[in-house]
Structures are given as structure tokens and as C-alpha cells.
């Protein structure tokens, strides 16, 4: 299935836009998505860390993705 992934901060620069359509297997979990992302955008590996949020919550690696989830790449935050 295709998942739309939002990208913020440096992730937006790396992805080359504020979102990307990413192809993952059905029943893919967050770790699977991260693997695909890193393969497609190797510069993500150079970040201090990156998290994935699903529906506005930080997601765990084993969380299963649904087609219409709002998914986002969260590079290291630096607000405040």
C-alpha cells in the first residue's frame, strides 16, 4: 500500500518536500516504514535520531500502519 508521509524540519529538506508517497507492504509496521525511508533517503541515517508519528502521536516500531493514518517523520526537535 501507499502511505503519505509528512516531513518537517531537516526531513523536509532531505525528502525534498513537505510530504512523500511511500510504498510499503500491507500490514507494514513503523520499523518497516523507517527501513524503506532510510533506503530511499539515506541522509536520514545521518540524523541524531528520527521518530515516526502516527495520527499525531509518537509511534512504536511495532505499530501497524493503516492506509489512512497521518504519518510524519519527526527529526530531532529543537523548539523552545
Amino acid at each position, binding site marked *: 500500500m501507499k502511505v503519505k508521509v509528512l516531513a518537517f*524540519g*531537516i526531513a523536509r529538506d532531505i525528502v525534498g518536500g513537505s510530504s512523500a508517497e511511500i510504498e510499503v507492504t500491507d500490514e507494514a509496521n513503523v520499523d518497516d516504514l523507517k527501513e524503506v525511508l532510510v533506503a530511499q533517503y539515506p541522509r536520514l541515517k545521518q540524523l*541524531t535520531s528520527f521518530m515516526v508519528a502516527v495520527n499525531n502521536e509518537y509511534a512504536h516500531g511495532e505499530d501497524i500502519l493503516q492506509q489512512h493514518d497521518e504519518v510524519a517523520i519527526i*527529526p530531532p*526537535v529543537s*523548539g*523552545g
Partner: protein
Amino acid sequence: MIDLNVTEEPLDISSCIDWVMTPESGGIDVFIGTVRNATKGKQVLRLEFEAYQQMALSEMRKIAEQAMDKWPVHKLAIHHRTGTLQVGEVPVVIAVSAAHRAAAFEACRYTIDTLKQTVPIWKKEFFEDGEVWVAAHP
């Protein structure tokens, strides 16, 4: 009570303070972040803040609720600005009222410390010779 805001408009420090004041309160602690003119000895020209707006508000609410669970706080306001900020401008205001000052101080400190760890907002520093997303790389 909790008041949250993520906005491109300049933050209004006085209205945050007025909002947290209650007749039951004896102390208010306010943290105001300001854009510094230098980082690691290098001159900063301006900053840009970007937020994942909806998730930022949701994470800010979690922090405020945790602070109110941990300390006897009356009201807590967190306002964060986005967009381009010049040196001396204010990216964040946190105001906390409580009957006694210890709770106000501790809840305010907890809120800014946790905000910097969990709230999806990103800061880019602009220098004479380039720009960098803060904390992105080791």
C-alpha cells in the same frame, strides 16, 4: 486550566500572565525564551521555527497535564511562535500560577525542559555563512 497556542503572530507576554492570575494564586512563574545573538560563539542573524501544528498542540497538552498532575498548579499557559524571528524576539512563553511559589517554579521548569524534548517544533539558525537545523546532526 490550560491555554495553548502555536502561532505566527508575536507572543503577548502580558496576556499570558494576566490569563494565569487567579485570586487563589500566590505566585506566578513565567519563562520567556528569547532569540540569542550568538550560538557557540557564532553570530546568529535570525531564526526560523517550524511546527507540526496539530501534534505540537497535542504534545503541549500532555506536558501541561503532566505538570498539573505533579504539582498543585492553578493555570498553565504555553505559547510558541513559528516563522522568522529576529534577535531579541520571543519564541516561547510559559506561565504558571499556583498557591505557593515552589509549585509554580517547578511546573514551569518541567514544562520548558519537556517541551524542548518532545514537542515537534524545529529551529533553523541563520548565520552569515549558512544555516543549520539545530540538533539535527550529532
